[in-house]
Structures are given as C-alpha cells and as structure tokens.
C-alpha cells in the first residue's frame, strides 16, 4: 500500500517521460502487478488526452503586423527622443534661460526709473524735507 502511494505520486512524471530509466522500469513492473495503480494511470492518461484535445488558437491575421508596427513606432519615438527631442529641449531651455537673464536685467532697469530720476536731485541740504523724501523713496525701492 505504501508502495502504491509512492508510485501514484510518480505517475504523472511517468506519463510525461520525466523519470530516470531505473525509476521508470520500477513503475512499469509495479503497474503490471497492481490493477488499482494501473487504473489510476489510465485515468491520468485520459486526462492527458483530454488536454491534448483542446484546439490551438491562431493569432489574428494582423497580429504580426500590429506587433512589428508597435515596435517600429517605439523605435521611431525612441530615436526622436534620443536624437531630436532631448537636444531640442536642451536648446529651448538654454534659449529660455538666456531670454530670462537679459529680460530680468531689463526689468530691473525698468523697475527703478523714479529712483534713478530722483538721484539727479540728491544734492539737497541734509535734513531738508526734500532729502528726507528722497531717503524714503530710496528705502521703498530697496
């Protein structure tokens, strides 16, 4: 009985030709003598036959074309990304940085017209109202 349990565990591998020759011959001998294990083997073989009866599916006619097309599109995108998009992004960012740099300088100049204008009159006597007013304006723009 113990033998039968061990043999049955090996029956699938036996059917699938996955056993070493020695093990295989041991099982073959056992099957010749044991009708219940032989019955089990027949059932398992029937299951294998049933599994074989499941028909194969064929891919859709356009499957190959679609798959290759997807790869080609990716390759093009990859090329564009590597060779065109990244350098283009780098150029655009550099251009934006330059524009921003110069524009910021211009803005800074444009931001202080009153201050610059008032500086022309900064030779008022100390503590005079004009001098205090200019001082306040300068503080505000700092």
């Amino acid at each position, binding site marked *: 009985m113990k033998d039968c349990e061990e043999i049955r*565990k*090996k*029956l*699938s*591998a036996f059917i*699938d030709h*996955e056993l070493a020759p020695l093990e295989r011959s041991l099982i073959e001998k056992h099957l010749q003598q044991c009708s219940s294990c032989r019955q089990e083997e027949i*059932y*398992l073989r*029937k*299951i*294998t036959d*049933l*599994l*074989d*009866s*499941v*028909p*194969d*599916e*064929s*891919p*859709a006619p356009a*499957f*190959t074309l*679609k*798959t*290759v097309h*997807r*790869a*080609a599109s*990716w*390759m093009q995108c990859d090329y564009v990304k590597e060779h065109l998009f990244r350098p283009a992004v780098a150029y655009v960012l550099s251009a934006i940085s330059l524009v921003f740099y110069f524009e910021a300088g211009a803005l800074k100049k444009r931001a202080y017209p009153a201050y610059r204008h008032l500086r022309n009159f900064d030779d008022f006597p100390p503590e005079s109202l004009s001098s205090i007013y200019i001082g306040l304006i300068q503080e505000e723009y700092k």
Partner: protein
Amino acid sequence: MEESESKIMSEIAEGNLSAFRELVERYQNTLLNYAYRYTGDRAAAEDIAQEVFFRVFKSAKDYQPLSSFKTWLFTIATNLCLNELRDNRIFRNTIDVFELNEAGFVALVSTRTSPERETENRELSAVLMKAIRSLPEKQRVALLLHKYSGFSYLAISLMMSCSVSAVESLIHRARQSLKNQLSSYL
C-alpha cells in the same frame, strides 16, 4: 536553434525589424495559446503576447544569452498573465461555459464536422478551459508550461525557482484535480 535566436536578438538590437518579425512569427502561436489557456480570454491573450514581444524588442540591447531564450520569453509571459489576473482585468470577462459557447470563443478544427459533434467538442473544450483556470496558480503554470509549451520539468523548475520534485508534485496535483473535476468525461 538557440544560437540563431541569439543572432536574431543581436539583429533586433541593431533595429532590424525583419529579424523581429521572424521572431514574432516563430513564437506567436505557442505564446498566444499559452496566454489563452492561462487566462481563458482570447483578446487578453493577444494583448499579452504582443506585450511580451514588445518587451523583448525593447530589451534586445541588454539581452544576455545566459539561459534559454524560450525560457526567458515564457517567464515574461507568465509574469504578464499573473499580473493581468491579479489586476482583475481578465476575470471580468470570464464567462460561464454556456455563455462561452454562445460567444463562439473557440474556433474548433474538427475533422468530423457534424453540428452535434462540433457542439460537443466546443462544450468539452470550454469545460476543460474552465477546469484549467480553476487550478491554483502554480499548478496551472507548471501544467501549461509542460503540456502546451513543451518545457521539461527541469526547465520549469528553473523558471519557477523551485526543485524538479516540486514541479513533479505540482503537475501531478493539477492532473488529480482535473481528474476529479472532469470525472464525467473520462
């Protein structure tokens, strides 16, 4: 065989689309059927097969022929099938046996073309597919890889990172389970 696949992969890495096409044509049937039997969903199986080939194409530059190409291919396919099932993207489409018949999901190729025989075969296929899908994940993977993709127990053990005797046990338990479910057909 294996050498030519390495060569094909190096050609793909250089952007050769004809080589890629050759690879797709070589493996599309086995991959599609594996994914189909795994998921039971024809459309999902095609998506999975296409995704596998796409991933192969993308990683062609980094491909190292350390293990069998087919093993690598089916490992990707198995992972994608598992992800699909875990994300529940497929089970919403799994339908009952009789609904499957109505949907005409199996294009049966039968030598005996009588309508009764065709219906019988279709029903049996649907029952079988359902039974396969009901198997625990590991048992299903091991059985499908062996039965329909022709992998040896040793190759499956490498793919599943387990021992050969564990694969033996998984396949045996899968057959036992199918035997119990399909006893009326035996």
